[in-house]
């Protein structure tokens, strides 16, 4: 499969009289862009705001981050299958992408009546409201645009935040559908501006392997939300719109670039949103750089987790290893998602690959070592031979901010305050770095007090 990706670098985004893209400046007509959102019968209120890198801004209550992409040749649409979009195969032809900019999906659920909250149980959604919720802010999804807490890759993007407050009486999955579908439409609208423009650069990705080189597969373990919300296509990490707990699915590296794996909500890549992170995955990118030079990038095996039972994890692990063997894979890179039982699934895949004679490398964060009382990994079989640490998820702290984006009207006061440091990663889902984005490593960002004392 062959895919051309044309990048249009965005230097700035600002509100103006006409929605347009000229010389890398994205001008946004707020009224025009909000009009279709407000016409959605399930939207009570909506707003549009921009967060730029370096600004004293905190984006809160975000569900997902979407890179605007446009399929200009080769069939299908980017981010296929979710929110009723076509499921036609992507990954060939030509795709336009807006670089350095993202549409952020913010869902304001303050003082809202949810339908049957007990039936729509979701991970990561607490019951506090207003100030209480903000006080426990560190456990909720937010990202800072500057300061020592600006650790997620989203801090380096120009974020066009679509804040949606849904109408009362929707179930949680439907609330998410409302914000996700409208954010995708906004992203499509912005990407459409590039259709007849000349890109800043074009890269070509060709899956053809070079004979004689070893084949490498990337196996991201991605939690399925099916055990919690059922087989919904809009909540959690989806593969062509499917969030189901299925056996491993094989995707080419080009399909990944077209957003075949995407989704938002608390269940998607630990609640930080799968869409941007899977379409800009550093492991996929570096495998492409080495493709047909040092090794052949065979593709990605999307291994779902949340089987909730070790025997089923074992079956899924063995199937993935056999699929790799059948495809002539010699080496595998693995990543995990959320940890806990998902970690067991990841390690069992690693074990099965090694037992099948395939070399493995695991890229992961370490556990909080609880001052030396706990092991760095929850469980590691003897076959685990090579790993790359992306840190422990510690963050030195979050400065007070002048602006908070993510709510209709002014956010609760507590969101503007400093937020204490995060020590270790347990429960702090939104800053986790599974893929090695490189901004959250232990060494780079945080020296624990014990080591500071040692000088």
């Amino acid at each position: 499969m062959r895919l051309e990706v044309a990048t249009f670098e965005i230097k700035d985004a600002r509100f103006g009289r006409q929605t347009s893209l000229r010389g890398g400046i994205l001008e946004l007509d707020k009224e025009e862009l909000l009009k279709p959102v407000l016409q959605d019968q399930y939207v009570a209120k909506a707003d549009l705001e921009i967060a730029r890198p370096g600004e004293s801004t905190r984006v809160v209550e975000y569900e997902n981050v979407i890179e605007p992409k446009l399929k200009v040749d080769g069939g299908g649409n980017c981010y296929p299958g979710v929110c009723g979009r076509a499921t036609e195969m992507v990954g060939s032809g030509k795709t336009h992408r807006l670089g350095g900019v993202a549409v952020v999906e913010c869902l304001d659920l303050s003082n809202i009546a949810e339908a049957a909250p007990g039936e729509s149980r979701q991970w990561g959604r607490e019951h506090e409201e207003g100030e209480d919720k903000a006080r426990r802010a560190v456990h909720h999804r937010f990202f800072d645009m500057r300061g020592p807490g600006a650790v997620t890759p989203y801090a380096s993007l120009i974020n066009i935040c679509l804040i949606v407050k849904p109408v009362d009486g929707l179930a949680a999955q439907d609330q998410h559908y409302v914000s996700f579908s409208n954010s995708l439409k906004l992203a499509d609208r912005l990407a459409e501006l590039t259709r007849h423009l000349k890109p800043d650069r074009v890269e070509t990705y060709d899956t053809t392997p070079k004979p004689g080189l070893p084949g490498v597969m990337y196996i991201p373990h991605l939690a399925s939300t099916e055990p919690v919300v059922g087989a919904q296509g809009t909540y959690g990490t989806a593969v062509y719109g499917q969030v189901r707990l299925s056996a491993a699915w094989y995707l080419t590296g080009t399909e990944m670039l077209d957003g075949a794996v995407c989704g938002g909500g608390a269940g998607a890549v630990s609640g930080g949103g799968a869409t941007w992170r899977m379409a800009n995955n550093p492991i996929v990118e570096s495998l492409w750089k080495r493709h047909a030079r040092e090794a052949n990038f065979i593709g990605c095996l999307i291994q779902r987790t949340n089987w909730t039972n070790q025997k089923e994890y074992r079956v899924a692990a063995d199937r993935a290893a056999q699929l790799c063997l059948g495809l002539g894979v010699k080496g595998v890179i693995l990543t995990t998602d959320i940890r806990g039982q998902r970690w067991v699934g990841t390690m069992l895949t690693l074990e099965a690959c090694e037992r099948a004679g395939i070399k493995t490398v695991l890229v992961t964060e370490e556990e909080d070592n609880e001052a030396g009382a706990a092991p760095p990994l929850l469980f590691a079989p003897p076959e685990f031979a090579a790993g790359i640490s992306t840190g422990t998820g510690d963050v030195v702290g979050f400065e007070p901010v002048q602006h908070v984006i993510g709510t209709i009207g002014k956010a609760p006061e507590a969101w503007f305050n400093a937020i204490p440091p995060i020590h270790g990663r347990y429960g702090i889902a939104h800053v986790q770095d599974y893929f090695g984005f490189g901004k959250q490593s232990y060494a780079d960002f945080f020296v624990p007090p014990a080591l500071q004392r040692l000088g």
Partner: protein
Amino acid sequence: MSKELEREGIVVAMISALPAIPLSLGAHRVVRGVRVEHLCGDPNLNEERDRGLMYRIVQAALQAIQTPVTQPTLFDPADVSRKEAVHAS
């Protein structure tokens, strides 16, 4: 928890749907449970069979407590019930 209790001299059998974790963390006696959501039973079974399953798991746990071990050991309720069947005949 299991290790702290054992430090106080109380023998522990830990029932887990993912035995790999307690075994690797050094729990001495681990019993295989059903699932994370329903560890000691299965809502897909009828009441009688569900009760039987629950009974077998608890029995395996009781047997584990009475079994001397020298390292982290997995007790599978399926094995225990097979042995039971042999005794019965």
